[in-house]
């Protein structure tokens, strides 16, 4: 029987009213079901409140549950009517011998959320917390946060009771619910409710072995927020958590990983740490082959954070992040992201070979990101640049349309040339890239093309004509392109003064009255300098390829302190969006961590010179303009924290925070 899709007309409400008040039990029950069906589709059936609760007098548990559902839904609209049900609840809680009925009553009672009814609830609730039956107890402890949310002032005796229960409860499931319940209250009140001691920790660790999977998650989740007193305690907790790595529920495993990784920081014994990492890694990798893509996605998002602190876990494991053909794209993006992150000077060949395949994918965004990743690897690892350029050139040969990936290709080639100017000779790359230069249709890619024309003017046939083409459309271009065109045109003029003098005049005429102050300023500066001393201009605009920016910076985008906070929240929503909890939720306080240095766990051989340099440079940077960085970081986080969008390399100083090494203007 389907009750969906009908609108309750006034007549129907009346009919329901009649049926609810009918003497026939079956008819009543059918009517109650209909009421619930209307409620589901969002129709207001609150007018029937009195008639519905009258049906409670029958001892039919199915109907009782439906009516309770109804009451919970409408109790706040009809608080005065709801008072009439109180007696029913109290009777069920106190008199019923059936634990299921007692639990049902107390569970529903808590959901009424009418402040003035809560005082009737306190006594029965106390009884239930002390009930003999664990099923009733586990329900009752969860009832406390419900009451607390609505009337916190009447709760102190209940909280006391909970703390007592925490000390003496022996049932694992009740204990797990109890912890969760107290944590809910902590969230609402902002105060610490749970008082831990050695004995309770022991009990919780025991309970993990015995309770249902969700309970294990609650307890592990909670333990991950605790700071152990010393190395020994950390060791004990890790030891007791290790078996959970073999649990079939991926979330349990994941929470166990979270606890272990957190406590590693507290261990003194280095060998133990290494052993533990060896145990954690395979477990985490198994989670990646879990057959539910949504869960996989969650894990992947977290792995890109874990990686920043524990590069050791995924050493030599780049293969597990290779994309399968049929995976959803949201997973492929994450995998691509991680692959670039764990790419190093040893495995870049493997990674590039894999990325080469992705260039054939159907989704243009994904191909674009692949190209970006290839460019990034080329710029980060000197040894990889030849291979990366070969791949990109091969791709460029087949370009026939101004697609999205082509834009990225042009941008990345510009970056590669900036890093290593001599790459233009490699596989005739400049010639091939120049042949597709007309496909540029985004500001960034156009500006990249303008840069290439200016920089390599002497190697490009008819570069002056190309530049004229650009300058003819100057007014229509984006500011980004305009600025680059100014620099590139001047550069070209210095190379071919006679050919380009008319060109440069045309440019100055159209640019000097620009509405954009940046464009105007730059025009005047060049103009004046050119008319006084062209030699100075040369030192300004000619690019010095020695000054290469540190591109691998955003591999460690997070302030290390933030990373610790993030890892404590592994699996949570904030981590999924790669934000800190307090950035996403206003009521969460910023956690101040006193630890100064954050340990990064690396493999032994992997400490290469290059990376060390990168780090050293970074820490220097951090000290120098920490504030600036924070601002910048904040801005980046607002966009998308960990995709390597926008490496700050465009030679436009639109953002004064970005230290710009390419452009001296």
């Amino acid at each position, binding site marked *: 029987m*389907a*009750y*969906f899709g009908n609108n309750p007309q006034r007549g129907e409400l009346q009919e329901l009213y009649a049926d609810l008040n009918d003497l026939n039990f079956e008819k009543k029950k059918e009517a109650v079901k209909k009421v619930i*069906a209307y409620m*589901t589709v969002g129709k207001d059936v609150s007018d029937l409140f009195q008639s519905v609760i009258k049906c409670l007098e029958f001892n039919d*548990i*199915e*109907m009782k*549950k*439906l009516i*309770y*559902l109804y009451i*919970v839904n409408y109790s706040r609209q009809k608080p005065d009517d709801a008072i009439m049900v109180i007696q029913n609840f109290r009777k069920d809680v106190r008199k019923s011998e059936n*634990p*299921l009925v007692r639990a*049902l009553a107390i*569970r529903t009672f808590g959901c009424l959320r009418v402040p003035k009814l809560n005082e009737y609830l306190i006594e029965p609730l106390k009884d239930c917390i002390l009930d003999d*039956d*664990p*099923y009733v107890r*586990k329900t009752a402890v969860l009832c406390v*946060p419900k009451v607390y949310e609505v009337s916190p002032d009447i709760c102190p005796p209940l909280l006391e009771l909970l703390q007592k229960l925490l000390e003496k409860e022996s*049932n*694992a499931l*009740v204990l797990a619910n109890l912890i*969760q*319940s107290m944590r*809910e209250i902590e969230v609402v009140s902002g105060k610490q409710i749970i008082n831990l001691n050695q004995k309770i920790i022991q009990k919780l660790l025991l309970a993990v*072995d*015995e309770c*249902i999977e*969700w309970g294990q*998650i609650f307890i592990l*989740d909670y333990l991950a927020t605790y700071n152990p007193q010393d190395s020994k305690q950390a060791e004990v907790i890790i030891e007791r958590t290790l*078996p959970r790595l*073999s*649990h*079939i529920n991926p*979330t349990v495993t994941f*929470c166990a990983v979270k606890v272990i990784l957190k406590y590693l920081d507290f261990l003194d014994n280095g060998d133990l740490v290494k052993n533990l990492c060896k145990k954690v890694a*395979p477990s985490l990798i198994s989670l990646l*082959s879990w057959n*539910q893509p*949504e*869960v996989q*996605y*969650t894990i992947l998002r977290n792995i890109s954070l874990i990686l920043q602190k524990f590069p050791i876990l995924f050493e030599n494991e780049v293969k597990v992040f*290779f994309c399968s*053909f049929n995976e*959803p*794209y*949201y997973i492929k993006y994450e995998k691509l992201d991680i692959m670039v992150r764990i790419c190093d000077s040893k495995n870049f060949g493997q990674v590039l070979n894999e990325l080469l*395949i992705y260039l*054939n994918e*159907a989704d243009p965004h994904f191909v674009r990101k692949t190209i970006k990743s290839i460019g990034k690897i080329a710029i980060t690892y000197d040894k990889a640049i030849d291979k990366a350029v070969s791949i990109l050139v091969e791709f460029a040969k087949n370009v026939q349309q101004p697609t999205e990936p082509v834009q990225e290709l042009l941008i990345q080639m510009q970056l590669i040339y900036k890093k290593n100017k001599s790459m233009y000779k490699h596989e005739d790359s400049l010639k091939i890239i120049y042949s597709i230069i007309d496909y540029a249709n985004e500001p960034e890619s156009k500006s990249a093309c303008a840069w290439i024309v200016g920089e390599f003017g002497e190697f490009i046939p008819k570069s002056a004509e190309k530049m004229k083409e650009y300058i003819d459309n100057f007014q229509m271009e984006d500011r980004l392109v305009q600025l680059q065109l100014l620099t590139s045109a001047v550069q070209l003029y210095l190379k071919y003064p006679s050919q380009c003098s008319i060109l440069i005049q045309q440019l100055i005429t159209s640019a000097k009255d620009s509405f954009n102050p940046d464009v105007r300023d730059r025009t005047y500066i060049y103009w004046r300098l050119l008319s006084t001393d062209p030699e100075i201009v040369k030192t300004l605009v000619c690019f010095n390829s020695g000054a290469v920016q540190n591109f691998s910076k955003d591999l460690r985008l997070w302030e290390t302190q933030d990373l610790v906070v993030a890892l404590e929240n592994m*699996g*949570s*929503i*904030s981590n*999924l969006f790669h934000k800190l909890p307090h950035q996403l939720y206003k009521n969460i306080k910023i956690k101040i961590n006193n630890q100064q240095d954050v340990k990064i766990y690396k493999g032994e051989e992997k400490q290469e010179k290059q990376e060390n340099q990168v780090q050293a440079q970074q820490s220097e940077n951090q000290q120098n303009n920490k504030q600036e960085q924070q601002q910048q970081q904040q801005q980046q986080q607002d966009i998308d924290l960990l995709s390597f969008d926008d490496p700050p390399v465009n030679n436009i100083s639109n953002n004064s925070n970005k230290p710009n090494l390419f452009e001296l203007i």
Partner: protein
Amino acid sequence: MISSIVFINHKGEILIYRVYKDDITRSETTQFCAKIVATKENKECPIINIDGTSFIHITIKDIVVLATTKVNVNVAMTLQFLYQLVKVCRAYFGGEFDENCIKKHFVLIYEILDEVMDYGVPQIADADLLKKYIQEGGLKPELMNDVEKLKQLTSQATGATSWRPPNLVYRKNEVYLDVIESVNVLMSVKGTILKADVAGSIQVKCLLSGMPECKFGMNDKLLMQREPRKPGQTTTDKGITIDDLKFHQCVKLPKFDKERAITFIPPDGQFELMTYRITENINLPFKIMPVYNELGKNKLEIRVKIKSIFEKNLFATNLAIKIPVPKNTANVNTNSAIGKAKHEPDQQGVIWRIKKYPGDFEALLRCEIDLGQTTNQQPWIKPPISMEFQVPMFTASGLRVRFLRIYEKAGYKPTKWIRYITKAGEYLHRL
């Protein structure tokens, strides 16, 4: 924790709506339905944030199962819970989960939702256990009034062995073991193995009386190294390296962690005892060798050779090799000595099916593909060749069950059966 659980159909209509916490309004959910579900955007990411509300969802066929929340919940757990919820529903509806059966059983679903989650916190969600106290049409009055029975029920549900009811009796005690392995492999165009692993699962059907304690052993290298050598006994099997194991909740994990021994009190009936993952020394049962030729502007040739690499006395069954062809394929001529190959346009490929395939054997398929005219200038993006098969009595990992010992007070001797089978997981060769 979680504020509400909602079932939505593909048009964005709400089928089931259960609120656990007050902080969410119905209009926020309908907004999600209209913006995300009806526009199919939900396929793009499993979690979406709209104005401070997080919508965590999974899609099962046409049904979106959604959890909403306003706090920083554990997403992995929430997703897992949604999957578990669907599993419970299926267990009640005989394996089905679609709009019709949701509408038909909505009263029952509300009852289930009331039980599996309280105040947004996941609770007991084990289908077998729930069936004991939630039944369609209400519980039988006999049970409702039998306080002793009810107490037994709640203590089982909240106890340490919640998965097994006490006092089971079978006239004939039997255990069936199935070792099922899925081989995942990705081969490059040149035929080198890019990645390969075996995802194994051990399924148990357990028909045993009382409270049996079981001990299970495999040729796990780490376990075998621990065992003392028996004098005079020489074994050639040194065991295999297992990368990772995951166990059913009945397995005593601390014991496994310390002694690597797998001990458990089994649930009644069918369950998955464990899953495992192996990446070392995998015996790939099939080798695929494709050759791709462009014979002209409108003509392609693909030749695929397969070779079985297992013993002659074994057989693979139900082979299906899918060779992708371009969209604009007009005609395909196939030629093979064994099996049947057919162009199936809806699959965009030639499917080569072979019922039974002997071990250590080679077969060749030749496809000549004529392409139709097309306006699409884009080059064809070649998906990989994929393969399906089953090889009974073979394990790609070399895993072997060494023993299953069962101890019970009554001291009965159960009959034990075991089967092995290897299947293709994602068995891919890039073209």
